[in-house]
């Protein structure tokens, strides 16, 4: 059984038919990427998974359990954790407070402490700046913080929305190295990216989304070599 499975999902914004029957699976331990142009439905898919939007048709299942019935905060408690688009860290709280907020649903103080150290070992910059207010961090550090905050919830699957957005190339590389690193430690990741080249490079499998429908799916290497994909997303 797949860890996460979407089956024929139709989502709407009012009358606008945003997702027109999306089906996809993410297996335990995989990095799966969802690529596509602006307005293709990538973020809508993530919102549907995390319960912010309820699909009118279709099902979202986590290890067979239907998530559609759950509200957004309950989906979080199931272990489906987002790194939101644009990072959305708590700018007025300190780095440490941000990370602790990520562990809001957990009670195991000792384990939280361990995870905090783990996050600090992944992102040493955050440890240096742990008492600094989030808003004072650079964009790259904010992305690290947003990722770290999500990790503090001990995700079963991590949903990352455009982690490369607005970052300098050197920082993008750093973030993607971390994504690979996390995956090697066993983390399952669903990665939404506009930067298809990078995404397909780290991912095991990929889906190409166009106007609310999946037009291509398959192994990441094959997709990267696909002439259609190349033309549309990889600059020829």
């Amino acid at each position, binding site marked *: 059984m797949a860890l996460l499975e979407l089956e024929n999902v139709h989502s709407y914004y009012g009358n606008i038919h945003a997702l027109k029957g999306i089906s996809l699976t993410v297996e335990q331990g995989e990095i799966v990427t969802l690529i596509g142009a602006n307005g293709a439905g990538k973020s809508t898919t993530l919102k549907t998974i995390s319960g912010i939007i309820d699909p009118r048709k279709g099902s979202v299942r986590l290890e067979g359990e239907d998530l559609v019935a759950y509200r957004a905060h309950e989906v979080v408690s199931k272990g489906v954790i987002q790194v939101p688009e644009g990072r959305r860290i*708590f700018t007025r709280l300190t780095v440490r407070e941000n990370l602790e907020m990520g562990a*809001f649903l957990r009670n195991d103080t000792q384990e939280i402490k361990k995870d905090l150290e783990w996050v600090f070992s992944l992102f040493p910059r955050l440890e240096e700046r742990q008492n600094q207010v989030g808003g004072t961090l650079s*964009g790259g550090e904010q992305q690290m913080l947003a990722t770290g905050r999500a990790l503090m919830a001990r995700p079963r699957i991590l949903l990352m929305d455009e982690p490369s957005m607005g970052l300098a190339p050197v920082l993008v590389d750093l973030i993607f190295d971390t994504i690979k690193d996390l995956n090697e430690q066993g983390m399952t990741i669903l990665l939404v990216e506009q930067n298809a080249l990078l995404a397909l490079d780290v991912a095991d499998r990929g889906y190409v989304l166009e106007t609310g429908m999946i037009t291509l799916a398959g192994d990441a290497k094959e997709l990267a070599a696909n002439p259609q994909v190349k033309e549309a997303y990889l600059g020829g």
Partner: protein
Amino acid sequence: MTQEKKPTWKDAIQLGVIGGVLVLFVSLVGMVQAFDGRYIISETLTLGQLLLFLPPLIVGYISATRTDAQHRVSGILFGSVSGLVTGAILAALLLLGSAINLRAMFINASPELMDILMFGQETLAVATAVLVIGGALLSVLGAVIRLSPPLIRSAILSGVSAVIIMGIMQELLKITFGGRDWYMPIDDFLYEQKGLSWMGVVVTFLLGVAISLWRARSASRPKKTVVKTRSRERQRYVQIGSFVLGAILLLILPQFLGPYPSEILNTVGIYVIMGIGLNIVVGYAGLLDLGYVAFFAIGAYVVGVLTTTGSLATVMWSWWLALPFAVLVSLLAGVILGIPVLKMRGDYLAIVTLGFGEIIRVVALSNWLKPYIGGAQGILQVPKPQIGDFVFKDPEQIFYLVAIGIGIVAFVAFRLRDARVGRAWKALREDEDVAEAMGINLVNTKLLAFATGAAFAGLSGAIFATKLGSIFPHSFNLIVSINVLSLIIVGGIGSIPGVLVGAFMLVGLPELLREFADYRMLMYGALLVVMMLVKPEGFIPEKTHKAELTDRGDVDFDSEIEPIAPAITEI
């Protein structure tokens, strides 16, 4: 002329005009005249005159801040120009007011005001000269104070403030301690019939200077980490000791103060309870509630209906029995208001809550409920609480109720803030969407904030009802909500000690100074504007808000644009 090329001359004149507008304003709204009856220094200086003196002083002071330390002389010169302009504007008012009748437009431009502006001079020409030159001299004084070394500056300011405060306090002290034997010699020594005696001026000034110097000294001394070296057990004893001491002090305070100051403290206390409650809603959870008075009204009316022995008598319960119902009904009202506004944010939420507050007031006034809650006539004969033979009858006894109320409410607020729900509120205040993504149940978190805040207001209303002994709908208008919101802003949003300070400033001071009552709203407005400009985080800021509103430290702007993530980014 080289000076004319300096932009600072323009600044100096600009400042002078601002000062002039300020003196014109305080004169023409009638404050100068209203405050002229109160003498600060006997036969010499009234509060009204002080009001006229302050703008040129402040203008001179500000003028001097704009010059650097090397140019003291030019700083003083700039100051004098500003003051000259301010004085000239005031003189223009005097000349104009003496020549023609301004009262058609400015009702307060009365002969009495002109009389005050003459400053005892016989001829108009001399008086004009006095105003202009006086303005300049005061500004020079302001500039000199600004340019003197910090230690001396704060000493002078502290001394002057002490004189002004003691001058204003004369009447209050007399009302409070007039009958006591020990107070009479002090009064004789410090005060004449009206205002401080010269001896009193000197003594209070020196006292102010001494306080300032002492504070400067203790601030410069390196702090020892006393607390850490103390053993835990000893700390505990100290805690208990100070608690007991505080309790004893509170117990004897009203007896010591007498009825009038106790009454003022009670009014302040009722606002403190409301302030702590609204602080949870606005300060902790970031939900702007402009209809907070509704819950205060509900608490008061529930107590009124359940306890009154007047014409609307129903069950005639004791206050103690009615109290939990008042709190509970308010709490439910908080939830009821909370449910429809769950999806709303910011401005929309503020408007809806504003409407809710008005609805409650209009319903209280309506004929529909008149048979039960008395409409405009209100509910009379709300009994006083009683424990055994002890009746909480006078302000001195009601004070205990208020003090216990504040204690309970502050304790609950502190505990909630540090609890899990406090963290949820914090996340909610910072970013609602992300809070949800952290697994926080927004519905429960919001409703709990509304409910807690409302319950506190209900408690406050219950005490208010028995304190007044009767309830009228006009006690529950929008101004109450505005007052509570203002006092938490002035004190520092999110900070509980800030609520105390804010309540004393905004509720206590106007009660103490009767002359201020007419200008209360004016003062509020002025104070809020000044606070937002000078100290936006409030007098006793809470940590997070301070971080937001003050220097952000080493912000790294080099890498990229700020993240902006609209709610719906793509379709």
